């Protein structure tokens, strides 16, 4: 079973914000909402500046899902965290729980009324008929149902942002690290060591990969 994940290679990201723009365009994201954004650290420091593209990481054990008082989140069979906007009350608990600041709230009206939560869907739409207009209006494009991957990663010019089955993108990234001989500060068992081979001990229980 596929387990969809994003992986951003900080050695390659040039902070062009192409992913942010592509996401906004593809999903018709409203003003004030950024499902994806680029974060830069050590800005302007030569040799130490790093950028990374951040959105919902579709956690295997998602805190947003745990704190939601109306239980509007669900995991799809391929590991994508989605939510039902018809059920969301816009309380903002998920925003406080998320370590990546992924949940976004459209603000409208004179008093900045907070609307229903909006976040990256891994271009997988939501609980409306697949590829329907209703799904597009509420959640954006359902590229997975078209046999495609999220546009942010597919159009990334330096291929810093990878999206797809966690094991496949971990292999791509590990191959890169080996070839360039740096950036080995990788995290996650499968990313660092690859999938378990015959006769090899499996990854420790509870470890993320």
């Amino acid at each position, binding site marked *: *079973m*596929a387990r969809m994940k994003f992986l951003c290679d900080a050695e390659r990201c040039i902070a062009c914000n192409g992913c942010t723009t592509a996401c906004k365009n593809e999903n018709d994201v409203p003003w004030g909402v950024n499902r994806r954004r680029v974060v830069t650290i050590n800005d302007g420091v030569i040799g130490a500046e790093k950028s990374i593209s951040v959105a919902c990481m579709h956690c295997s054990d998602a805190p947003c899902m745990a704190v939601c008082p109306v*239980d509007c989140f669900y995991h799809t069979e*391929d590991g994508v965290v989605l939510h039902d906007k*018809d059920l969301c009350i816009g309380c903002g608990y998920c925003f406080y729980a998320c370590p990546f600041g992924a949940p976004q709230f459209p603000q409208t009206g004179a008093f900045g009324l907070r609307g229903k939560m909006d976040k990256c869907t891994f271009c997988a739409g939501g609980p409306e008929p697949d590829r329907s207009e209703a799904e597009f209006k509420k959640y954006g494009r359902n590229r997975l149902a078209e046999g*495609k*991957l999220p546009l942010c990663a597919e159009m990334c010019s330096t291929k810093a942002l990878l999206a*797809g*089955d966690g094991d*496949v993108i971990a292999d791509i990234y590990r191959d890169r690290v080996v070839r360039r001989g740096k950036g080995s500060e990788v995290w996650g068992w499968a990313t660092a060591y690859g999938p378990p081979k015959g006769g090899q001990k499996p990854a420790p229980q509870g470890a993320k990969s």
Partner: protein
Amino acid sequence: MRALKWVVVAAAAIAMAGLAGCGEREQVVVYKQGKYQGKPDQLPWNNAPLAYGSAKWTQGNEKSWEDELKTRTQNQNEYVRIDH
């Protein structure tokens, strides 16, 4: 003598109450996955491939859909796209 007995009992009660403060409780939040209350979603592989799209899979077959996406994921790997 009787007053002393009450003092001892009171001291013992205070000591017991004090000891209760030494109890250690689990401070780590244990997340419990909520039960989804919303509408059911469709499975992506149950859709027919787009007539004009390049992605092809057998409708309703999860494995063929996953294989299609895995092949597509390799488009992000320039070491495969371009022979090095």
